C-alpha cells in the first residue's frame, strides 16, 4: 500500500526510504526535489509553497496508487512540503523499491510527472532583486485523469 503525505514540516528522506524496500526488492530509488538558487537567469533567494491541502492529499494518494499499479511497485512513499523553503531545502521526496531497477525508475518518474500536471500546489519565487512572482504552472486536466503517456512508457 503506497504512502502519501502533505506537510509543512521539514521532510525526512530517510524516514520515507525506511517505508520502502523488502527482501524481494533489488532496487531502492530515492528522489529529492530541492529549491535551486536560480530561475530564468535570475538569482532566487527562496520559495513559498501553497497548497489546497485537503485536495492535494487526495490527489497525491491517487497518483501514488496509480504509479504502484502501473509499475507493480506497492513499496512506494511520497511526501510534498508546503510553506517557506530556503535554497537547498527538500520540497518533495519519492521513495520506491522494486525487484529490478526499471520499475522503480518508471514509478518515480510517473509520480513526479503527475505531481507537476495535477497536484493543487503553487509556489511563489522570491528573488535576490525584485518582486516575488508565482511560478508559471500547468493547467490541470478538467477530469483529473492521468496523462496517457505519463511516466515515459512502461518499464
Amino acid at each position: 500500500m503506497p504512502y502519501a503525505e502533505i506537510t509543512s514540516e521539514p521532510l525526512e528522506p530517510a524516514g520515507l526510504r525506511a517505508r520502502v524496500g523488502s527482501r524481494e526488492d533489488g532496487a531502492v530509488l530515492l528522489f529529492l526535489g530541492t529549491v535551486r538558487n536560480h530561475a530564468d537567469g535570475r538569482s532566487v533567494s527562496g520559495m513559498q509553497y501553497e497548497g489546497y491541502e485537503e485536495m492535494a492529499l487526495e490527489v497525491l494518494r491517487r497518483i501514488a496508487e496509480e504509479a504502484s499499479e502501473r509499475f507493480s511497485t506497492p513499496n512506494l512513499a511520497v511526501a510534498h512540503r508546503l510553506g517557506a523553503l530556503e535554497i537547498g531545502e527538500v520540497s518533495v521526496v519519492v521513495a520506491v523499491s522494486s525487484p529490478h531497477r526499471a520499475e522503480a525508475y518508471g514509478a518515480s518518474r510517473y509520480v513526479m510527472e503527475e505531481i507537476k500536471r495535477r497536484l493543487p500546489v503553487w509556489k511563489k519565487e522570491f528573488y535576490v532583486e525584485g518582486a516575488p512572482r508565482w511560478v508559471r504552472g500547468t493547467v490541470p486536466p478538467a477530469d483529473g485523469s492521468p496523462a496517457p503517456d505519463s511516466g515515459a512508457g512502461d518499464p
Partner: protein
Amino acid sequence: MRVQARFFAAYRELTGASHTEVDLPEGATVADLIDALRARGPSFAALPPKPAVAVNLEYAPTDAGLRDGDEVAFIPPVAGG
C-alpha cells in the same frame, strides 16, 4: 442553493479573498458560479473566464452541475514539485 467558493495562490491575490459564499438558483453549473462571481466587481472580474475548478476536492468541467453545500475551488495552473 448556496455554495462555498475558495481561491488559492494567484487567484486569491487577484480576488483579495480566500473564500466566499455564493447564492445560486437550483440547477446552476460551475459556469454560472463563475459568471456570478465575475459580476461582483473588478477584482473578481479579473478571474479568467474558464479557470480550472475542483468541486468537493475533485477536478470538474465548467458544465458540471452544483448542489447546495458544494465547495468549489478555483485552481490556478499548478506548480508542485
